[in-house]
């Protein structure tokens, strides 16, 4: 498919919040995503599972525009994210376009990536003040509200080095939400945590699912959690969606052999 074959905008009535259309990602000769098609509807919670190296993280990083794209187009809210219009057709987006386009997306990382020289509150206020141009008092109010929501208001003046992993991850979630994204990405946000604090982070995500109309795309190895809160599960295998469906269906009656193998391997390990 040539770039001129992709629509400049998705048509009314067929506008998922996120659409991966024929997306390919290569590192050198290694094809990590192979002509991937994936839609996430508005307000939907989709969880990506799959073996190590199957391209789960890459999907999120592509959507956060942390990686360049080698083929296909990603659309967000009907508009191209990775490409922009020029002379009536799509061309790879420049940095300026990307800055506008990715403002509706937020991401939380496995290793939190909080700014170590700022307090929890300053971490949350940084984006609203510097990027959105919000006044300090307004940004503070919004940030404190979010820190309250994630149960971190007591620690708002602590630097990350004084917080536990679970606490840091909750601050990181508040920091991302302070930008009011439409789409939130969670890449193994509990993988670097001690088992006893995983619950404090998953509870925050549960609350987000229950009370907010956010579109979410999550990668996790916690099958129970994924099953509880997802609208849909995508099983990735070698850069492609091998099987997808509602959690009960995918976990109870997986159709593909590779899905069955993966799930039983995970069950044995867990």
């Amino acid at each position: 498919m040539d770039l001129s074959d992709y629509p400049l905008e998705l048509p009314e009535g067929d506008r998922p919040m996120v659409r991966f259309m024929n997306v390919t990602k290569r590192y050198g000769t290694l094809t990590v995503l192979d002509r991937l098609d994936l839609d996430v509807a508005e307000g939907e919670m989709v969880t990506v599972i799959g073996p190590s190296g199957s391209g789960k993280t890459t999907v999120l990083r592509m959507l956060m525009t942390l990686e360049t794209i080698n083929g296909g187009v990603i659309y967000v809210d009907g508009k191209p994210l990775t490409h922009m219009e020029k002379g009536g057709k799509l061309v790879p987006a420049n940095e300026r376009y990307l800055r506008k386009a990715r403002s509706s997306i937020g991401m939380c990382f496995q290793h939190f990536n909080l700014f170590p020289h700022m307090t929890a509150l300053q971490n949350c206020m940084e984006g609203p003040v510097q990027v959105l141009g919000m006044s300090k008092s307004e940004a503070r109010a919004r940030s404190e509200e979010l820190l309250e929501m994630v149960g971190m208001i007591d620690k708002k003046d602590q630097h990350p080095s004084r917080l536990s992993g679970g606490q840091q991850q909750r601050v990181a979630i508040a920091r991302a939400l302070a930008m009011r994204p439409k789409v939130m990405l969670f890449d193994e946000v509990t993988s670097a945590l001690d088992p006893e604090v995983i619950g404090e982070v998953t509870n925050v995500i549960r609350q987000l699912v229950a009370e907010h109309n956010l579109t979410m795309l999550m990668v996790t190895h916690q099958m129970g959690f994924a099953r509880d809160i997802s609208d849909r599960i995508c099983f990735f295998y070698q850069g492609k969606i091998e099987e997808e469906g509602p959690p009960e269906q995918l976990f109870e009656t997986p159709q593909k052999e590779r899905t069955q193998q993966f799930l039983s391997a995970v069950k044995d390990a867990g």
Partner: protein
Amino acid sequence: MRFDWDWEFTFEILPRLLAATVNTLIAAGLGYAIAVVLGLVFALAQRTPVRSLTFTVREVVEFIRSTPLVLQIFFVFYVGPQFGVRLSPWTAGMIAIGLHYSAYLSEVYRGGIEAVPKGQWEACRALNMSTRDTYLRIVIPQALPPSIAGMGNYLVGIFKDTPMLSVIGVAELLHTANAIGSENYRFLEPYTLVGIIFLAISLPAAGFVRLFEARVRRKLGL
């Protein structure tokens, strides 16, 4: 030859040497100020996506680091006039020493910037921060503390290299000691005093740098 120490002579020349010490400190301070700023420009220029700029700056830095400072001082002072650039010893000296040390400082900054984890850059991107804010608010504050030790070494280094400016007639310490020596046919006292003055400034300076580093770290909450 006489090896006896003349105290009277010592006290006679001390005021002149102390006055020259002020010049030495000004030369070191000005040269360092140039190097601190220009070094950052060199370091950041090597991180732009413009390949030709990155390459050119890299080569310039390598060239400066691989040639002697004294040659660079001569070059700026004596070769400049051939191209119509006539500079006073002070101006030529400050340009040469500032440029020389900016090459070294750019490497210190580069190391500091590269030590900032990739995840910090990605967090900035995920928050949609501009490149400018990413550097000024996130990367440089974190690159600074690990750079301070190296920056401090070069501060002491530039101070100890200021005598090279005597070759083009900048009236710093060594130049003044030379003048005193040839006027009086006595070199023991002026040179010894110069050595003591350098020692008396360099040693505490190194200690202050360490204290400063600890302070900056505390201040940034690192």
